[in-house]
């Protein structure tokens, strides 16, 4: 019935070809593939070819960190892992057409030695790709412990620039954006908005100081001025009490009183321990940006651009919650391995790593343009979102910030500035 009406006169060859093709129809379970480099013309499915197994390890350091202020921001137990699971599922949907199967094995430990021992065992058993959610120092120790093994680590959590610069490791690639990329993404937008006078309020934790350092660098780079700096001395204590607003309502206005004229209050509080107290409480009526208020992120649960809706829906169906930035960073790492394996038709560690670091590699990651790895330090370059808690405000790089090679390299330390030596030597 369906094939009865062949009306076109110019399709004889095509009809013959299609009939030929149908004669070779294979079921979905054993599909075949022809690709750019392929020489096989007819879809002759090779029977009983062994399935290519690509095991990936997710290594998480359990660390004692104070919880963020808002109940909305409490990390779920599977933060990160959920993104890895989705990427495995996406890889396997593709893999079923290519006879490839990806698995994710989770390793968790509260001690550095424990994590190293567990990951080493997995690597020894054949898992050559390790996605890491750990503090920067643990990541470095893990990388050094594995440096003579055929294993590639993906840093999905630590934004520290030093891991990509003077302390970069040849066996680590990074899907988490750096602090400098995040502050540059935000800074470009604020400069575009002509809000160039910044009042910087920093916390006392080392990561707050690091974030403040990158904000200063961003200001210098893009022509903003930090007109005043204050340090917010604060002992987080318990995040929840019956009450709290009575005191912060009194404290924040006086803390921010008398600052030099500024367009925006920039807050450096990565742990989200006090920054959320600032919006709508500052002495002068000014917007808040940085780690609270308007923030730069690799992912946002409300992003629906560039096919993001389907991606968010898939995640929600699988994990019963919204996707967080760490989930996205892990998804990127696992998908990068999957994308490389589907292009190269291999699970070979060396071949895949060489390909992922090459100019030919590109990963579509719901950001409107392709994402790629910087060849000088293994950092994923990607557009970053400038958002409020609820909705996207903009996407950086801003169109006015130009670059001779890739506009994405206007975010973070660029090749001429890099201090990474281990990578280029490789």
């Amino acid at each position, binding site marked *: 019935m369906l094939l009865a009406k062949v009306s076109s006169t110019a*399709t004889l060859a*095509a009809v013959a070809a299609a009939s030929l093709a*149908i004669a070779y129809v294979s079921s979905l379970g054993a599909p075949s593939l*022809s690709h*750019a480099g392929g020489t096989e013309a007819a*879809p002759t499915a090779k029977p009983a070819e062994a399935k290519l197994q690509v095991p990936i390890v997710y290594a998480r350091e359990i660390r004692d960190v104070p919880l963020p202020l808002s109940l909305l921001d409490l990390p779920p137990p599977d933060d990160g892992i959920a993104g890895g699971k989705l990427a495995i599922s996406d890889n396997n949907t593709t893999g079923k057409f290519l006879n490839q199967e990806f698995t994710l094995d989770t390793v968790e430990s509260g001690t550095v030695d424990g994590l190293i021992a567990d990951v080493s065992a997995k690597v020894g058993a054949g898992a050559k790709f390790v996605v890491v959610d750990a503090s920067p120092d643990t990541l470095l120790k893990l990388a050094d412990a594995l440096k003579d093994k055929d294993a590639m680590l993906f840093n999905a959590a630590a934004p520290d620039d030093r891991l990509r610069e003077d302390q970069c490791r040849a066996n680590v690639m990074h899907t988490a954006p750096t602090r400098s990329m995040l502050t540059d993404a935000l800074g470009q937008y604020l400069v575009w908005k002509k809000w160039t006078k910044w009042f910087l309020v920093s916390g006392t934790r080392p990561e707050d100081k690091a974030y403040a350092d990158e904000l200063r660098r961003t200001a210098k780079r893009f022509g903003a001025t930090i007109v005043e700096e204050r340090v917010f001395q604060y002992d987080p204590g318990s995040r929840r009490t019956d009450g709290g607003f009575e005191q912060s309502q009194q404290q924040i206005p006086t803390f921010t009183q008398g600052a030099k004229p500024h367009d925006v209050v920039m807050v450096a509080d990565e742990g989200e321990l006090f920054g959320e107290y600032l919006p709508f409480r500052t002495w002068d009526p000014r917007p808040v940006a940085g780690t609270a208020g308007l923030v730069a992120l690799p992912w946002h649960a409300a992003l629906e651009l560039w096919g993001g809706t389907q991606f968010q829906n898939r995640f929600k169906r699988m994990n019963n919650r919204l996707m967080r930035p760490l989930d996205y960073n892990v998804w990127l790492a696992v998908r990068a391995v999957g994308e490389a394996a*589907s292009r190269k038709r291999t699970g070979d560690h060396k071949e895949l790593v060489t390909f992922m670091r090459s100019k030919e590699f590109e990963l*579509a990651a719901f950001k409107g343009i*392709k994402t790629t790895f910087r060849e000088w330090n293994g950092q994923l370059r990607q557009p970053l979102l400038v958002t409020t808690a609820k909705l996207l405000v903009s996407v950086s790089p801003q169109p006015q910030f130009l670059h001779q090679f890739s506009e994405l390299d206007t975010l973070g330390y660029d090749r001429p500035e890099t201090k990474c030596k281990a990578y280029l030597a490789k």
Partner: protein
Amino acid sequence: MQRVSTLLMSLLTTSFMVGAATQAQAYRVFVSNEKENTITVIDSEKLEVIKTIKVGQRPRGIMLTRDGKRLLVCASDDHTIQVFNAETYEYIRNLPSGSDPELLALHPSGNPVYVANEDDNLVTVVDMEKGVVITEIPVGVEPEGMGISPDGKVLVNTSETTNMAHFIDTATMKTFDNVLVDNRPRVAEFSADGKQLWVSAEIGGTVTVIDPATRKIVSKITFEIQGVTKDAIQPVGVRMTKDGKTAFVALGPANRVAVIDMATFKVEKYLLVGQRVWQLALTPDDKMLFTTNGTSNDVSAIDVPSLKVVKSIKTGRYPWGVVVSPN
């Protein structure tokens, strides 16, 4: 004015063209407005909006039945296909579509209709007359583009995150081959003679031309536009003239339509249109091409013989899909 003179030229030069030109009654161009939940109907001669139809949530892919009497609209966020009377514009009924229908293809016989379910990794086959789902075909992640061979024997679906063109035998309703293409394939389109299959890759920035008989890649077309960054060149919509000579590729945020010689696969010209151009549709006489320009809320009308953009026509917000009536 340009268009009038072109038509006159045709009249004077070839008798064949006279026939075509005198027949060239106004076609109607249907444009789905993704953010506005409407369809804009445009007169292809006057290049004016003649009607706006209210439809379901997030209309994207749209299609007309072979006789031009029914308009099918993928109401993606309502998870249904709405059927409208294409002449009176009255709503008739819903067709089952599976989750999040995005693009459609119709078998040349007029039935069934094939639906890409972007959210479900499926192609749903729907019997239009009975209004029932015949089967579901598993494909890659985020199925989108749908192309059917002129003889109706082969359906090609592209999956945006799997990066493949899936070849489906319409008799067995199973995939029989899968061809890897560049990142985020959006549209698959057969040439009128069925000998070429063009697949656009939005993030990859390329168009892959595949020989449907062998599933071998014949050519990979790349684009270069002075003053436009490479990342902004994002091929989506593909249309080819019936004479097999000229292909048009919409280049998304590059705001251009590429004109390509189908024999050499060389880009001959870039036509400047509205912003974020995605989908394309030719009139049945191949004289006019319409483009949906998502972020500038308009449609560009291109005169095909002269390769000139003759007018931009305001639509609803975020125009997405476009289809032209057969008569």
